C-alpha cells in the first residue's frame, strides 16, 4: 500500500498534516501522538517579532464548532527557530512553517530568516487570518494583492511555498489561480470562516475581538466544496482542511481533489485524532482494495 504523497518535490509518508495554530509546534501533542506517524507538522504561525495576540476571551464554542480570535500570538521567528525547530529535529516527519505578517516586509523577513534552516521543508503563508486588523486581511481577499505577495515571497523563499487561502472571498477559484500564476508551489484551504457570537444575557460579544474564525465539523461541507473548486481551477497541489475529524472526512477531501489534508480543531476534541486518521486511511485503503492513495484523488 502506498500512502505517500508529493508536494513540490517534498515527499510526505502519508497525506495527514496538522492545521496551523491547533497543534503548537507539536510539543504539546507529543504526549498523545507519535509525531513520526504524521505526514507533516504544520506549525503555529510565526512572525518576524513576538506578537501579543488579542485580549481574552479568545475562544468560544458554537454549534458544531468553535470561534477563535487568538490574534496570532507567537514568540517571533528567532525564538521559534532556536526552540521549536530544534524540538522538531528529532522527528521523522516533514515540517511546514506557517508564516504571518502585518506587511509584506514582515513576511519576507521571516522567509529569509528561515531560508537556511534545514529543518524547514516547506513554508505555508497565512494571508487571511481575520484576527489581524492591520491589513493582513487584504492580502488574501484581493486577487491582485495575493498575486503580489506570493510573487515577492517566491523571489526570496528557498523552500517550496504553500499559499493558505481564505474562504472569506467571493470566488475561491479566482484566488487559487492568482496564487498559482504568481508561482505558488501549492495552495492550502480553507482557513477559518469569519463568524460572530453574542451573549444575549450579557448583551455583549462573546469574543473580545468581536469576530473570530470558525472551525470545526460544521464548516466541513463548505471546505469540501472550496477544495473541489480550487483543485479544478489550478494544476498545483491542493491541501484540504476545514472540519476534518476522522478518516472518512479526510478521504472526502482527497476525493474532492486534495493531495494532502490537515486536521485542526479536531485535535482539541480528540488529541489522538491525527494518528487515528493515519490508521483509518490505511484501513480504508485495505478494505477498499486501493493500492495507492493517488487512485482516489479527485475521483468524483
Amino acid at each position, binding site marked *: 500500500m502506498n500512502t505517500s504523497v508529493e508536494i513540490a518535490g517534498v515527499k510526505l509518508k502519508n497525506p495527514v498534516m496538522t492545521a496551523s*495554530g*491547533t*497543534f*503548537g509546534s507539536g510539543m*504539546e*501533542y507529543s*504526549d*498523545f501522538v507519535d509525531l513520526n506517524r504524521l505526514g507533516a507538522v504544520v506549525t*503555529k504561525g510565526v512572525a518576524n517579532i*513576538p*506578537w*501579543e*495576540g488579542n485580549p*481574552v*476571551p*479568545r*475562544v*468560544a*464554542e458554537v*454549534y*458544531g*464548532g*468553535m470561534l*477563535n480570535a*487568538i490574534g496570532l*500570538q507567537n*514568540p*517571533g521567528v528567532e*525564538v521559534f527557530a532556536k526552540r521549536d525547530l530544534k524540538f522538531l529535529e528529532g522527528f521523522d516527519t516533514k515540517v511546514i512553517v506557517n508564516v504571518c505578517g502585518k506587511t509584506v516586509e514582515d513576511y519576507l523577513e521571516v522567509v529569509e530568516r528561515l531560508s537556511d534552516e534545514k529543518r524547514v521543508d516547506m513554508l505555508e503563508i497565512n494571508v487571511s487570518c481575520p484576527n489581524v486588523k492591520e491589513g493582513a486581511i487584504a492580502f488574501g481577499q484581493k486577487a491582485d494583492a495575493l498575486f503580489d505577495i506570493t510573487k515577492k515571497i517566491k523571489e526570496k523563499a528557498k523552500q517550496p511555498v504553500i499559499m493558505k487561502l481564505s474562504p472569506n472571498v467571493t470566488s475561491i477559484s479566482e484566488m487559487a489561480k492568482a496564487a498559482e500564476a504568481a508561482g505558488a508551489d501549492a495552495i492550502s484551504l480553507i482557513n477559518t470562516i469569519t463568524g460572530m457570537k453574542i451573549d444575549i444575557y450579557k448583551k455583549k460579544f462573546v469574543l473580545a475581538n468581536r469576530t473570530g474564525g470558525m472551525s*470545526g*465539523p460544521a464548516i466541513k461541507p463548505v471546505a469540501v466544496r472550496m477544495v473541489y473548486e480550487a483543485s479544478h481551477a489550478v494544476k498545483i497541489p491542493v491541501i484540504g482542511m476545514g472540519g476534518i475529524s476522522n478518516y472518512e472526512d479526510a478521504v472526502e477531501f482527497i476525493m474532492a481533489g486534495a493531495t494532502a489534508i490537515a486536521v485542526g*480543531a479536531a*485535535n*482539541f*476534541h*480528540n*488529541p*489522538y485524532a491525527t494518528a487515528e486518521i493515519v490508521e483509518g486511511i490505511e484501513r480504508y485503503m485495505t478494505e477498499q482494495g486501493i493500492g495507492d492513495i493517488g487512485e482516489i484523488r479527485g475521483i468524483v
Partner: protein
Amino acid sequence: MSGKMKCEAKVLSQELLSEGIYDLWLQVPFAKDVVPGQFVGVFPLNKATLLPRPISICEVDTNGSAIRLVYRVVGSGTAEFALYQPGDYMMVLGPLGNGFPLDKAAGKRAVVIGGGIGVPPLLETAKRLSKAQGSKAPAKISAVMGYRNSDTFLDDEFTNFAEVYVATEDGSLGTKGNVIDAMKEQDVPCDVIFACGPMPMLRGIKAYAQEKGIKAYLSLEERMACGVGACLGCVCKTKEVDEHSHVKNARICTDGPVFDADDLDM
C-alpha cells in the same frame, strides 16, 4: 501511569449538593497522580459540542483510583453532565495544569480561600496540607469560603482539615461581605494564601497579600479550547515576558492555572 491522557471515566456516584451544584465521583486511571489545584477537561457526548469543559478536581479518593468533581451547571455541556448516573461513562482529559505549591506552606499559617464554584479545588488542597508531615507541615490551616447566601456547599467538609470561616454576600451565614471581609473581621492568622474564585475576589486577595507582605497563589479560570497549551486561547497577563510565549501572556491551562500573585498583571 503519568502524563496527560484522554480516557473513559466511569461514573461512581453523582448527587445534587446545592442549587445547581453537582457532586460527581469518577473512576480515572490518573487519579493517584493528581496534584491539588489541577483540573480535567470533560467532554459532553452531544456531537454539536467540540470542546472539553475545564473542571477543577475537588478530591482524590484514598485508593487513588477516583476523582471528585464539584461543578455548577452553567450551560448545555454541564447540564448534560448532571444527567449522568452511576455506571455511565464520560470522556475526560487530564490531569491538566499545575497545582498549588503546597511546600510553600511549610511551617507557616496557611489559608485556603475559595469563592463560590472556586471552593472545590481547595478541599483536596486543605486535605493534603493537613497530611503534610514534619518540617513540611503548616503551622496552622484555615479555610475561608465565600458564598452568595446560606445555601453553601463543601464548607462542612473543610472542618476535618482546617479552621473554617464563612462569608456570605447577604449576611445570612458567617461574615456579611466577601472573603477579605471575613479575614479581617475574624482576624484569620495568615502567612501564605492558596485561592480560587472569581477575578474580583482574586484581585482583592492579591491586594490583601501585598498589604500584609505575604505570598498568595491564585488559581485562574478562562475560556479554553485545547487545555494542553497548544491553542493559546486561555492566556492571562503577566508582569514579565513569559518564558514560553516571549510576550506578557502565560497559558492558564499549562503554565497555570495556579500562579504566584506577584507574577500576574491583574
